[in-house]
């Protein structure tokens, strides 16, 4: 950890925007990173709101004292319609699934109403930090490019205005940044590089720190060829094979983290907790040391 990171406590991972969207391919641990960011900020006394888009209960379990809101396209559209003077019919429409037809007539309007809702929460000033557990990587880019696409398709009107407002938020690095999450393995890193490129060129949003999740922080076992293991037994062979295996995995990991660091500067490492399932305590432990992991 360098001396320049003293503000880490009040701004976890050095994030300075009000809104953070956490994105990455399926299975890399977006929800973990969302929880860690929220935990660190809440522990530093900041007013934190977490937004979840899939209806999964994990974040409520991991962050018992932080406000977690579950936002869906249907609920956002209903709210949007209510605010635009369609009170009586709004509920019935969303219940009958008209959003599917509207979403097809103007693709992305479901994403836009969700982003519009997020923007409204961000503007309210009620929170110092809003963390969004974003959609999976492929969808993240679609999700974030929606307003630009819709503004071209629908000029003016409430949808056009909404798109403009959301675009202004996404483009302002003081208001919004995107935190990308990956694993220290080749396919997730390849996807990370593609997603980062798409977000820079097609969304025009600020990329926050990149987080490498589930980093094996060692220790590195000694080279089996250089350790005197005594008389060779079945167990000794197992131990030597395990050492060779871990060393190869750690080499692979170091190479992949190297690619991430080269592309984005020093990525944040979240250590691999060797448990079957992360608990509230694991999240707290990860949040307490988000910057403490140094490259192996």
């Amino acid at each position, binding site marked *: 950890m360098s001396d320049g990171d003293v503000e880490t406590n009040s701004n976890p991972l050095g994030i300075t925007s009000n809104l953070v969207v956490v994105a990455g391919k399926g*299975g890399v641990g977006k929800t973990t990173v969302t929880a860690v960011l929220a935990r660190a900020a809440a522990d530093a006394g900041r007013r934190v709101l977490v937004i979840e888009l899939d209806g999964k209960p994990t974040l409520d379990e991991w962050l018992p004292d932080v406000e977690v809101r579950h936002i869906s396209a249907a609920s956002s559209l209903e709210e949007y319609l209510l605010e635009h003077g*369609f009170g009586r019919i709004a509920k019935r429409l969303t219940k009958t699934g008209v959003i599917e037809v509207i979403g097809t007539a103007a693709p*992305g309007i479901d994403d836009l109403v969700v982003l519009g809702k997020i923007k409204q929460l961000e503007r309210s000033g009620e929170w110092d930090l809003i963390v969004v557990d974003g959609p999976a990587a492929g969808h993240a880019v679609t999700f974030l490019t929606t307003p630009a696409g819709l503004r071209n398709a629908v000029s003016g009107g409430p949808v056009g205005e909404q798109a403009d407002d959301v675009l202004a938020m996404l483009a302002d690095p003081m208001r919004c940044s995107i935190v990308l999450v990956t694993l220290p393995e080749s*396919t*997730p890193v390849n996807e990370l590089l593609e997603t980062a490129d798409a977000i820079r060129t097609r969304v025009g949003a600020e990329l926050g720190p990149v987080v490498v999740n589930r980093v094996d922080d060692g220790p590195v076992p000694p080279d089996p060829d250089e350790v005197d293991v005594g008389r060779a037994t079945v167990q000794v062979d197992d*131990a030597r094979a395990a050492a060779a*295996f871990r060393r190869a995995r750690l080499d*692979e990991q170091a190479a992949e983290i190297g690619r991430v660091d080269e592309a984005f500067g020093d990525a944040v490492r979240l250590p691999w907790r*060797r448990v079957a399932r992360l608990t509230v305590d694991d999240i707290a432990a990860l949040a307490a040391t988000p910057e403490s992991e140094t490259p192996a």
Partner: protein
Amino acid sequence: MSALADVVGRSSVIVCCGSGGVGKTTTAAALGLEAARTGRRVVVVTIDPARRLADALGLAGGLTGEPQQLPVEAGDGELWAMMLDAPAMFERVVRSNATDADQADRIVANAFYRNMATALSGTQEYMASEALYELHTDERFDLVVVDTPPSRNAIEFLEAPGVLARFLDHKAFKLMMLPTRTGLKMFSAATQPMLRLIGKVVGSDVLSDAVAFFQAFAGMEVGFRERADAVATLLRAPDTEFVLVTSPQHDALVEAAWFADQLTSRGYGVSTTVVNRVHPRFGVGTVADARTRADKAAASGREQLAATWANLADLRAVADLERAEVDDLLGHTGSPVVEVPLLPTDVHDLDSLAHIGRHLFTDG
């Protein structure tokens, strides 16, 4: 013979399902490769817009919307691969159902149709099921392996054949059809509260595109429904097999277990579950064994040796945890579980695929 060797030997369709990032594409490629090795003519179709299948198959030039034969050593067998081009597939489906070329042209040129072909939730899954059906009836192939789209709700693939039929049953669609049925003009549609609302939200141009689409579609619903039924029947055929793919991580296992239950309750059944990237166990000894030896080595001042035993204990503990999770979450499904160990290096090409194949197709 292992359960999976049996599956690739006798089935005519294999559907690989699972959440994103669990190695579904690689598994589909390994199944295809093995089937080709046993003399079958196989086509692997991926829906993944990323280049993962091409990567997995060592195909530098990438995949296209048409099947390409791969240069693999497969004796009499053949391995082909393609990537789903959903909009092109959709157009083919429209053209084959249209009463004449005019109707097809009107639909394909419509903005609402283009949105539907590219952006309607479920379209990819729907077109994947269409491609599956088309390839199944293609005489060049005797096995189709489908790598299903990563979707938040993997069950969408099974319901996909009905997506358009359900969409056409939608109340809004019926309202939009009303003007043609009653001979009234567009303006009467605009007096419907629901359509007026849609128009206010998305703009009147967008609404008239939608109305024009639904009107142009008139008469084609029957063909679409029949096709949906045929695809649904194929998915339930006795020689269609579902292979569930997961990683040993908790979330992926929870989703896999849920999906297995869904498949079973809908009468499909999971033929095999593949758990990818399981930590190897390194022998039959216990974690405690290795720890005791580490402690003994440390006590006698042999630090390097102690670290070697401690590492064995660590890795065995991880492997045991993963196996306990797999048993805990998948045990009740009753489908055979095949584990593919995490390799010391990541999989990139055909050689590594063959390595995975060895784990999939030999009895452990």
